């Protein structure tokens, strides 16, 4: 019998997986500096450094419609939040 926590876990996994499953597999380990990526929150970001750990990218935010103040700021992008490679 399913429980509330089972449902929560399933939902959580679905959120985490959706970004990956909705697109082709993105090997972020291979992305060189200067690449541009689209993030799950709609932002466009440029890769400024790649630690090549398969988990994270150092990025600079190029476009951020929801919060324009973020444009030009440095951030880190987690693998499941990278949903497309633009350039």
């Amino acid at each position: 019998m399913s429980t509330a926590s089972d449902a929560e876990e399933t939902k959580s996994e679905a959120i985490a997986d959706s970004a990956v499953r909705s697109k082709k597999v993105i090997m972020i380990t291979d992305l060189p500096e200067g690449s541009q990526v689209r993030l799950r929150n709609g932002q466009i970001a440029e890769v400024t450094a790649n630690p090549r750990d398969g988990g994270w990218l150092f990025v600079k935010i190029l476009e951020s419609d929801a919060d324009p103040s973020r444009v030009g700021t440095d951030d880190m992008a987690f693998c499941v939040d990278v949903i497309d490679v633009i350039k």
Partner: protein
Amino acid sequence: MTALVRSYGDRSLRSLVDLDRGLVSREIYVNEDIYKMELEQVYTRAWLFIGHESQVPNPGDFVVSRMGEEEVILVRDRKNELHVFLNTCRHRGMKVCRYDDGNTLVFTCPFHGWSYDTDGRLVGVPYYDAAYKGDMDKSEWGLPEVAQMCNYYGSVWATWDKGAPSFEDYLGPYADMARRVFQSTDGEDNGVELFNPVYKWRIPCNWKFPGFSFDGDRAHGAMTHRSINVAAIGPQGDANGGNRSPLLAPFPYTDYEMTVPELGHGGHNAIYDQPGVAPYKDTWFTEPGIDDYYREQREKKREKYKDKYIVGETAHIWPNVNIQPHRILIWHPHSAGVTESWRAYPIDRMAPQFVKDAQRRYMMRYGGPCGLTESDDMENWNYASAASTGTVAKRFPYNFMMGAGHAFKDEEGAPGMTLNYEVAEENQRSRLRRWLEFMEAGSWEDIYPVNPVSPSAGQAVKAERGTV
């Protein structure tokens, strides 16, 4: 510790270490409760050797080291500052670094992805905005960093205890000797680098077997290492009877067991009867060209030190490391009955490659897991350990009587040091004495500044040099 107290009734730690009579219970070398107590009382307080700055020359370079049983990361951050961090994620404890050495932008935990900058700051938390919603302050969840770190002429040391004295005060009279160990052979500070990688291997004995006897047990050499000299592993081959150490030019000196019992440091050291450094004596008969390099270096050092009286050139730094000009020996506690031995070999940073290669080959023949000298030592430590765990065996204490009561001072020749005949057990008693102080102390306030050594503790002080 409560288990120990229950097991031994009124037998306190002090009753197990009777330095007045030179009797030490085998229990302190085999007992699991005492071992666990050491990890807290000794290894979270003492200054410990971490590594050398030459292992991490560039921003982002890191090397994994140990403090007690626990792994730490020595890393140079992007601003060129050195740090020592515990190798564990603050989220669920996973190792954030699973390589021995390398270069990185961040340490990313492979479990859930928490990511730490090379300065230890937590910079990446998956789902941070969506899931934590600002409830967690990342600045409070960086990698655990040591309380104090010291870059001592290129060597890196650290302690988990913010109440510990500075590293230089911790060294006391051994500060100058430790400085010279990290000089190149021409006497220049910060003149060495370490061969990479560091040797690491485990041996089935308590860490105190090697840690408390090395450079404090000259009596073992004639018996234990007889075979090495027959094998003539030294750079001079079978000259000088095959002795494994480089040849020495005549220079008036007297060898002693030398120690600072108040601090636990010590070694076999010489007091020279004249200032300066001995001239170089050709040694490398089996490796052409090496003597030319070392001879030139020695002349530069002789000029630099021509007016200075030198005292010794090796030091056991309490609790678990011995530093020498061409080798650093570390004995990490791994369990009550297992020690993880590490060997690092310093070499002149500016030496030609063929000199570095020759020195490395000599060190490999000499020490480390395959080196002949330490193979001899390991056999003793390992079998002595195994033969000390039995119920009946533990009824019989070890004998540390050699030279007890015959120590003396020579404030002119070796300020701050306590001396004994060159074959004694003065160093071993000093290390055990400091061990007992650490094990009984509530904090650094109880053990520093140090208490003068009581003559009744097997450290009789005689006024005149040469009374032994």
